[in-house]
């Protein structure tokens, strides 16, 4: 807890005898050290199946690994060839661009949609409760289920096109067949799937606002928009920073809806950086090449992870 760390780091306060303070510290440290025992199962599992694979991924990225040699070896050292090949063939560059589009769409819709839902669901009543439960249920569904239904809804004869054609469109929108639309469609479903979670997090922050604040604002003649703008938005600001990073990480690594709805297609239209690495390894069986692409993806999330880890520590201190 906080008391332990502040004891250790803080200067002994005036009036307290220094040796006493030190003795307390050593007991706390000993207690703390003994409790690392609890970390051992985690270290074993994540060392063997988290860290070791990550090291192996980097190792593979610098070698020529194919389906013939993946299990038997030897892997030939190729230096940066796997990395340069990706750029030379024009695969990595466009994949980075597509990933940025996906991250941008999911992040904007995920954050704005989550906040809008949280504000709307803050009101009391059965409708808000039922809608919140419905959204959390959809969030909890397997991604293959959500991906399947949206593939159905966005098909040429699907519900969305039926509505659009009922409104006067003469031809169906090629949501999953057009290269631009396909990227937008999978991003939209990614945002759809993350909005309920973000709404829950925003809602928790909104519920923490004391009712007196709203009462005072009402006395000052604040309307609903003023409440949103001057009370709710400032109240969720600390939360939004962490949630923003989490949403970007989610968007960056999302592959489920690409796998189910387009499998990277049409052509290469939905080959984002993480999915491209997967295809290079498991559709073309060039594991070294796929590993190199994946290492680039890992480097990006690493930056986001550092920001996230620092925000956790800051919030706790």
């Amino acid at each position, binding site marked *: 807890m906080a008391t*332990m760390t502040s004891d250790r780091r803080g200067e002994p306060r005036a009036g307290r005898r220094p040796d006493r303070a030190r003795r307390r510290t050593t007991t706390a440290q000993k207690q703390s050290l003994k409790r690392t025992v609890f970390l051992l199962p*985690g270290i074993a599992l994540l060392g063997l199946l988290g860290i070791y694979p990550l090291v192996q991924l980097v190792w593979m990225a610098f070698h020529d690994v194919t389906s013939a040699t993946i299990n038997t070896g030897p892997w030939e050292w190729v230096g940066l060839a796997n990395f340069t090949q990706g750029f030379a063939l024009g695969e990595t560059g466009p994949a980075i661009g597509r990933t940025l589009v996906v991250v941008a769409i999911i992040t904007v819709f995920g954050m704005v949609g989550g906040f809008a839902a949280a*504000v709307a669901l803050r009101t009391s009543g059965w409708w808000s409760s039922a809608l919140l439960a419905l959204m959390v*249920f959809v969030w*909890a569904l397997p991604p293959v289920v959500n991906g399947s239904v949206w593939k159905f809804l966005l098909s040429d004869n699907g519900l969305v096109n039926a509505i659009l054609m009922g409104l006067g469109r003469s031809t169906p929108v090629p949501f999953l067949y057009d290269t631009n639309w396909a990227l937008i469609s999978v991003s939209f479903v990614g945002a759809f799937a993350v909005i309920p979670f973000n709404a829950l997090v925003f809602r928790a922050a909104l519920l923490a606002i004391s009712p007196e604040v709203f009462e005072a604002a009402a006395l000052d003649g604040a309307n609903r928009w003023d409440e949103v703008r001057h009370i709710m938005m400032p109240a969720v600001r600390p939360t939004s920073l962490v949630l923003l990073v989490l949403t970007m990480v989610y968007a960056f690594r999302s592959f489920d809806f690409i796998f189910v709805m387009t499998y990277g297609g049409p052509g290469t239209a939905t080959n984002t950086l993480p999915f491209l690495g997967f295809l290079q390894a498991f559709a073309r069986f060039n*594991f070294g090449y796929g590993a190199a692409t994946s290492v680039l993806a890992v480097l990006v999330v690493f930056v986001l992870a550092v920001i996230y880890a620092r925000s956790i520590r800051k919030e706790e201190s």
Partner: protein
Amino acid sequence: MNTKAGPVNIGIKILFTLLYGLPILRIVQTSFTPSADVFNAQSNLFFRPTVAAYAANLGPDLLVALRQSVLIATGTTVLVLLVAIPAAYGLARVSGAVATVGLGLLVVLQTLPQTAQIIPLFQILGMWGLLDTLAGVILANAAMLTPFATLLLRPFFRSVPIALEEAGAIDGAGMFRQFFAIALPIARNGILTVMSITFLLAWGEFLYSVRFLLTPANRPLSVLLAMQVSAFGIDWPGLMALAVLTSLPILAVFILTYRLLRDGLTVGAVK
């Protein structure tokens, strides 16, 4: 406080109700529609319900897949809890460099793309002879979900007052006794939340299972669904019936743990 909904508010609620309600309705409705009528606009409203799609799905293959799903999701949940509960407690109680490094590693592992980890895991599990086994998939799933579970649980253990454990120590309770008898019961809600969410995620996981389980008889429901939806000439009623069957256990877990998910999910995600 304006607790009554204004017009904008009602508009947003209608939008979200349609956005999240319609897909669910369409899944269920399509699963009861005859194949020939799927894209017939009139029969979308006035359709003759049929259980043909369910009858076609129900068979020994489905039961095998169901068994695999249950084994994978349960096995993953048990393993994750066995590892994440002590780890979360440990990280809530240790301080200094160990905590910093531990937390940093967890965050990095949590953010790694699954599509990246699957490449070395395919080789490593092959080397250990664990490809095409449930154990391999369960281990890979557990390694993927443990960082998240630990980070979600840690704040629950942090909120257990350390004075309680100190009082236990004065009464002669050792370190493990303090953990089992004092910290665990207080963090009960957190543990149930993590249990529920790990089960949901493991039930829906399909990438590891698609790649690691090569024998068709080993595949769980999520893989059957993923393979049917990427096939040519999709039989939509059959697919939607399978989606409903795959989602029913999720519905059960959801009903049992909704309050925990609603209130507990936001604790670890943000703090």
